[in-house]
């Protein structure tokens, strides 16, 4: 699903963020990407969504080599990937419903089809009662669920999450991780970057460990 082949990334005027990283995520698998902050976890996820481009090596997603994907094709790549961030990147001037619906609007979905799918995905993450609220009125865990709903509403093949529980307490964090685990059990490929080393053990899932830009599995 996601393949990195000897990928390196060097930021201008900075040290190497990734060095010779190779990995292959099988379709339907779930992995944790662990490591200290600054180990290169975010960089790796950004390469998969073409926010950053590798300095060397190849990045392949679902059979498509996206190493030097042209700018105009990037939106279509991102539609096939659900992305969740630590700061969830919600829009605070829109309701929960509108935040989630946006992911379908950018794909030119007709309004009639949007309603049903947004309702379904909000029910899936347990937020159906909050659909007309504004994100600011929700708790941190609920806000993160809105972001997850937005990432899922497109029915992506690959779900990437960057420190999704970073701002949450242990119990809420576990609930969010359990949610990802459910999606994995439904066949979605999931990669979760976290510095919380208890999660791989708790769920019995493999971890990919990054240390100063180099991968150990």
């Amino acid at each position, binding site marked *: 699903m996601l393949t990195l082949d000897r990928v390196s990334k060097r930021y201008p005027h900075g040290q190497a963020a990734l060095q010779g990283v190779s990995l292959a995520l099988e379709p339907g698998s779930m992995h944790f990407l662990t490591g200290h902050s600054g180990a290169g976890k975010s960089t790796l996820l950004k390469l998969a969504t073409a*926010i950053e481009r590798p300095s060397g090596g190849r990045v392949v997603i679902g059979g498509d080599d996206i190493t030097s994907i042209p700018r105009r094709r990037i939106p279509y790549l*991102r539609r096939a990937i659900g992305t969740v961030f630590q700061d969830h990147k919600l*829009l605070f001037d829109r309701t929960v419903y509108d935040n989630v619906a946006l992911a379908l609007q950018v794909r030119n979905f007709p309004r009639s089809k949007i309603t049903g799918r947004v309702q379904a995905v909000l029910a899936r993450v347990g937020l159906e009662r909050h659909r007309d609220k504004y994100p600011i009125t929700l708790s941190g865990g609920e806000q993160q669920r809105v972001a997850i709903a937005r990432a899922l509403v497109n029915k992506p093949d690959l779900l990437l999450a960057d420190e999704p529980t970073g701002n949450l307490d242990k119990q809420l964090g576990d609930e969010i991780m359990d949610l990802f685990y459910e999606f994995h059990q439904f066949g979605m490929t999931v990669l979760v970057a976290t510095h919380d080393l208890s999660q791989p053990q708790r769920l019995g899932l493999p971890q990919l460990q990054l240390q100063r830009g180099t991968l150990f599995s």
Partner: protein
Amino acid sequence: MKPLRVPLRQHREILGEVIGRLLRQPVATLMTVVVLAAALALPAALLLITDNLERLAERFEEPGKLSVFLVHEGINPKALEDRLRGLDGVANVRYVGPEQALEEATSLLGLGEALEGLPDNPLPGSFEVTISPQQRAPARMAAVADTVSAWSAVDQVQYDRRWVERFQAVVGFLRQTGGVSAVLLGAVVVLIIGNTIRLAVLNRRREIEVIKMIGGTDAFVRLPFVYTGLIQGVAGALLAAVLVAGALAVLNISLADLIAHYDTRFRLRGPDGSYFAVLLLVGAGLGWLGSRLAVGRHLRDIEPA
């Protein structure tokens, strides 16, 4: 056929959203529209005024008379008179012989004593040619004068056309001024809209980042801004049209009295359908251009990070 990057249905939805957004900030929207209207109304009004002045120039009654002065010797007034009457557009011809000219000069101008002292009558014979009213356009008068002055028996032809030409030169200058101001103020409209859109883009930076993150194309991000510019341009043009039409109605009332002295049938011509259409198209086009330039410049800079 190439499919639309954004389907028509979605255009409608985005248009509705944009209008809603503009109406939720009525003061800011109104101020932009008023400034745009002022910038559009000035050249539009100048254009209308020069158009009316040109029509006025055409309608002015020309003096309509040519004085054809003859050479002193070897002329046959009767033959010349027939020849003049045969010309296209000539309504009437009156011969003034040298003696009659002397009499008129003596009685009308009080030159009797000065002229009596001369051994010979210095005045030539002449024809007073009246051109029919339909043929009094400056170009037509000039054509008749040119034809006649080429005849061997004719010394010179005079008619009072200079003030008409001057008037037309002034109108031409006004029209050029209108053209130059139209270009300058058109650029102003593009800059105003470009600037409001630039601010809107920067205000919604986060939203643009998120849309790009979840797979929105450049066209999708661009569309609401382009519509915003387009709508503001059209609204500015509409208000400009109202301003011009209003100003013209007021002018018509105050000018009616003045104009009555010259030509009772003359009225300032107000903006007609095609004038409105052009004004709206120009407003829409400049709005589109301004927003397109502004969004195009800033869109690439905003990327998810």
